[in-house]
């Protein structure tokens, strides 16, 4: 993996993935991944359907152990750490799941409140205030008592984002956030991501294959390929489009219209 971009000032690594190999019961999904996510970056993980993006996310967030390799948060190797240390890391991480993963038996307010109850010693009233604030931030003020099944898909996505942001995470993972959103809502979500990154200096990791948002928000990106099962390219998406030597990467970034750029 070459780094074509010049790096003016060496920023601080927030997450480092080293030699990571992911597999399901003997079936290797991706192998020998190595990349670094800088603090405050908006990092795009792109690749075709089923290439292992969600699996990579699972390993980075502690849901599934890797076959080989390590994931470092700052200097701590996640999979070598003890349970309490892992919880300490995950407490600083927010995740927007591909399928929203809102707890269906709880209201939106309870959904957002659960992480706060779990990890903070705040009392009921304080939690309720934070919950209202977070829901208002994503445009869902007044929907506190709704159940996930009672709101639209776009609203569910935003509610899930409110929950992911409940603990003011340092790192936010988004798994295909614009899937199932109309272009306007997808655009609004992109703006929100930029806003979060800008105002709170959150490190944002976005799994997506939505070209519009890749170019709109991505600062750094990696391209995963299911055929070679490796990381094919890394760098700024705009720059990859211009001069990635790999035709697959350019084909992806131009929706298959090769040689048009």
């Amino acid at each position, binding site marked *: 993996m070459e780094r074509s971009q010049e790096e003016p000032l060496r920023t601080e690594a927030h997450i480092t993935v080293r030699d990571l190999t992911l597999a399901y019961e003997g079936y290797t999904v991706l192998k020998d991944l190595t990349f670094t996510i800088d603090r405050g970056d908006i990092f795009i993980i792109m690749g075709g359907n089923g290439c292992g993006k969600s699996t990579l996310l699972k390993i980075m967030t*502690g*849901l599934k152990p890797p076959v080989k390799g390590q994931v470092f948060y700052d200097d701590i190797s996640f999979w070598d750490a003890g349970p309490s240390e892992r*919880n300490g890391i995950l407490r600083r991480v927010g995740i927007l799941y*591909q399928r929203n*993963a809102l707890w*269906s*038996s709880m209201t939106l307010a309870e959904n957002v409140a*659960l*992480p706060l109850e*779990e990890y903070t010693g705040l009392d009921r009233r304080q939690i309720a205030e934070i919950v209202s604030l977070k829901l208002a931030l994503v445009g869902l003020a007044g929907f506190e008592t709704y159940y996930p099944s009672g709101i639209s898909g776009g609203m569910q996505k935003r509610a899930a984002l409110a929950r992911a942001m409940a603990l003011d995470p340092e790192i936010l993972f988004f798994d295909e956030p614009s899937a199932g959103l109309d272009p306007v809502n997808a655009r609004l979500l992109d703006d929100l991501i930029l806003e979060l990154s800008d105002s709170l200096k959150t490190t944002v990791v976005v799994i997506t294959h939505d070209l519009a948002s890749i170019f709109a928000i991505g600062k750094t990106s990696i391209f995963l390929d299911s055929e070679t099962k490796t990381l094919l390219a890394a760098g700024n998406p705009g720059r990859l489009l211009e001069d990635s030597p790999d035709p697959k990467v350019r084909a992806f970034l131009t929706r298959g219209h090769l040689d048009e750029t």
Partner: protein
Amino acid sequence: MKVHNERTAPPGTVSLSSPDVGVVLVRLSGAWKKDLELPSADGVMDRVLERPDTRLVAFEHTGLDAWDSSLLTFLVHLRNRCVLAGVRVETEGLPHGVVRLLMLASESKRAKGLPGEAVEASVLTSIGERAFNFARYFSHVLEFTAEACTAFLRLFEGKARYRRTDLGLLIYECGAQALPIVSLISVLVGLILAFVGVVQLKMFGAQIYIANLVGIAMTREMGAMMTAIIMMGRTGAAFATQLGTMEANEEIDALKTLGISPMEFLVMPRMLALILMMPLLCVYADVVGILGGAFVGVGMFDLPANLYYEQTLAALKLKHFAIGVVKSVFFAVLIATSGCFHGMQTDRSASAVGYAATRAVVVGIVLIVVTDGIFAVITSFLGI
């Protein structure tokens, strides 16, 4: 069919010629539509291979009228046979659309990871595979059981993380909401037992003993058994569906990354609710079933009510109740475990959820009946 009538082309035909040595030109003509009689690919291929040293098959389509997927299946078949026979196929002479679709069809077959290329397994292999799968299933069950026990230990330590409101709701669902169906089934079982019994006992003029029959059968066996089967189909299946859907929606992942154990948060309250409610439902079913029997005995066969009442009291011993209630606790554990376990094992697809529910019910009912049998053996061995 009328719609096509103004342009009825003759059904598709194939004619072969050899413009060159080793080359067979397949000339397609007529209409290739699904509802017409068309030449078979095998027939054509046999004719192609009859010709000595065929190396190349080419096509021509000037006479070809309308076509649909029947032409495509014909060509795919033909191509596969050619590949087997080592004959090259040149698709240039086909209509442009056909060539594109053929290309698509051959590409999707190349997509890796599809089960298309599965080799037929030998009997031994498949037996081994089944045994292996069963061993793995069993190890998952053990793992699940161990985790559930840990969750209960933490509950007794007061450290388990779950929502009291969830538990309350589950208790309501497992208890109060099940009353109508449990009432209906129990009263019917009581009636049936009494009817069957009375016909036999009448021969000896001993009708009054249906009070014993119904009383003992309900409390010892049928009360626990019938509620268990009802609750398996009703609540066990619901548990599997709920947890399966949660797994498919990544809700369980979301809990895990929060450091909340799904065992404590989701499984333990379900087990607890069922373990608390099943004995109550069982006793309730006993009473309702006995009333059903009394209805037959007193209402239809004119046994004196006070006699029937006293006979019932005399027959009912605490041990019969106790055996039924103890069994119902075991059944509750089995139902909740089967429902929750299969729910948690669900893959991430909608169909998998239905499959999980079915499996939960089948496995659960088998376990219930087997456990009941074991109890029958043990109690008779102990003489209680």
